[in-house]
């Protein structure tokens, strides 16, 4: 039996990513200055980004596909990676967690996400997911001297393992029904056999696992604890990357493999989306820790983004992707501000910030309003685009619920602004500014404003 050597072009980005990650492991021994490693990491990411558009195609016997859908997601992952590295540089030093493996693991995790986005076979999907998940478990616990970090890692790990067990059970049933793990072939087969209860069970099991990754209620409960405990840079990374990856696979698997039970999963997702928006927004209101608040906010945003999937149209998917793209900037931007402050994890740390650090406060203000979805910020464009697609798909009532929740969300985002601008300062807020962090903030704030004012940049 002679198998031809597989076409490597479509996987080049992943290859570069993994090679760089591996190389970083070795280079770590050589370079004492970890900034160099970060720089290499960014270079690698940039290289991947440069190569990506050329990597269209299928390979490995159709297990891997590089199409515009996956490429867009990979862009998000790379942006997420670059921004995370930029905000990490000085921060992990401060947190005494500056290991060379840190960057390597970030790259591995990103590679995992990229595999998820490109997976055409459930096996690849599972392995990519585990690659991403295992790396992030470690990253969450990388402040190993910190109990909170340990706690976060343990919780994330155990629940992650639990959810992937559910995923596997679902996949195994799906396999039993179709004798294949190829997503497209599954779709073909299922079209022929029709809907069975087993199929519904397997779909639900798989959905639960993915919903866990995007932190949708009621599978969200890990998120606040993990976001709070993990190093802030990793929280930023997790709140965008795995979420986007989760949406990428939901989009692909549900739209192809489970096409014939679309009504069923749409119904499920509608319920989940409403619950997620409710839980995220309502619970965020009473938080006193900003990371925790942003965790609930990211849960809420997952709820909105789910609407894009529910729409069931190409426009819906596009809107979902645009939303994630914009969300990456505004969310990481917000976390970058949390990082820039010496003490920035509690909401009370922000009291009187506008007086002390007017620029930092102004930037935070922009991110908060963007997350709320107030024009002229990118957050508005994201929401607008999404809601338009969903309404066009006929779910106006769902959008009304969503906008009401987003009005509620203004309350907790405003609390940050209120603390910064309208409360008396308790103590001078020290900031840790580094060129890389400034660059990250600059990029994010510019993107938030530019997309807000000239949306044609992203939706052309």
């Amino acid at each position, binding site marked *: 039996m002679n198998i031809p050597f597989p076409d490597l072009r479509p996987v080049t980005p992943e290859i570069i990513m993994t090679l760089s990650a591996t190389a970083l492991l070795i280079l770590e021994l050589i370079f004492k200055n970890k900034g160099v490693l970060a720089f290499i990491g960014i270079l690698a990411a940039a290289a991947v980004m440069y190569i990506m558009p050329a990597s269209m195609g299928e390979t490995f016997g159709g297990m891997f596909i590089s199409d515009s859908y996956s490429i867009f997601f990979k862009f998000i992952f790379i942006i997420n990676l670059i921004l995370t590295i930029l905000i990490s540089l000085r921060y992990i030093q401060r947190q005494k967690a500056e290991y060379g493996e840190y960057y390597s693991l970030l790259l591995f995790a990103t590679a995992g996400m990229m595999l998820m986005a490109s997976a055409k076979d459930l096996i690849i999907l599972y392995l990519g997911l585990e690659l991403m998940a295992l790396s992030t478990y470690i990253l969450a616990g990388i402040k190993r001297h910190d109990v909170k970090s340990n706690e*976060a890692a343990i919780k994330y790990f155990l629940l992650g*393992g639990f959810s992937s067990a559910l995923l596997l*059970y679902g996949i*195994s049933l799906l396999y*039993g029904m179709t004798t294949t793990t190829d997503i497209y072939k599954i779709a073909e087969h299922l079209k022929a056999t029709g809907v069975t209860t087993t199929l519904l069970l397997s779909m639900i099991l798989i959905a639960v696992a993915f919903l866990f990754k995007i932190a949708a209620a009621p599978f969200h409960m890990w998120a606040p604890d993990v976001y709070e405990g993990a190093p802030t840079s990793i929280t930023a990374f997790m709140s965008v990357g795995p979420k986007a990856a989760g949406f990428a696979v939901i989009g692909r698997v549900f739209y192809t493999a489970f096409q014939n039970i679309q009504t069923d999963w749409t119904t499920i997702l509608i319920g989940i989306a409403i619950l997620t928006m409710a839980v995220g927004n309502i619970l965020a209101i009473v*938080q006193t820790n900003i990371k925790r608040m942003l965790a609930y906010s990211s849960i809420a945003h997952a709820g909105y983004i789910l609407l894009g999937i529910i729409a069931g149209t190409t426009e819906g998917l596009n809107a979902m992707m645009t939303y994630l793209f914009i969300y990456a900037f505004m969310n990481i931007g917000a976390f970058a501000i949390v990082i820039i402050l010496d003490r920035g994890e509690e909401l009370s740390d922000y009291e009187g910030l506008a007086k002390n650090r007017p620029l930092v406060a102004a930037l935070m203000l922009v991110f908060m309003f963007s997350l709320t979805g107030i024009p002229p910020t990118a957050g508005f464009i994201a929401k607008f685009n999404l809601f338009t697609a969903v309404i066009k798909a006929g779910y106006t009532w769902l959008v009304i619920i969503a906008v009401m929740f987003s009005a509620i969300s203004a309350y907790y985002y405003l609390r940050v602004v209120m603390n910064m601008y309208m409360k008396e300062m308790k103590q001078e807020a020290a900031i840790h500014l580094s060129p890389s962090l400034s660059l990250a903030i600059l990029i994010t704030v510019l993107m938030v404003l530019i997309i807000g004012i000239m949306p044609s940049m992203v939706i052309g």
Partner: protein
Amino acid sequence: MVPLNWYIGLSAVIFVIGMVGFIVRKNILIMLMSIELMLNSVNISLVAFSHYLQDLRGQVFVFFIITVAAAEAAIGLAILVALFKNKAAVHTDEIMEMKG
């Protein structure tokens, strides 16, 4: 010949036992083992399917699952050790600092 359903039933029972173990036990190690139980139940069903469908894919998948399970166990135990160094705790009661 044993019907396929029997295997699936067995797999389901073990899966659920693992799940219940995960939910009710406070010991992190046992929880980890419960996850392994669940994975094994999946393996059983995959091998059974593989056998009955006359297709090797299931077994290949099992192979990967075992690999990942190993990696997972390693990482999980490493995290546990890191936690244990800071705080002699293997119970979930003791890692409830973050909540609400």
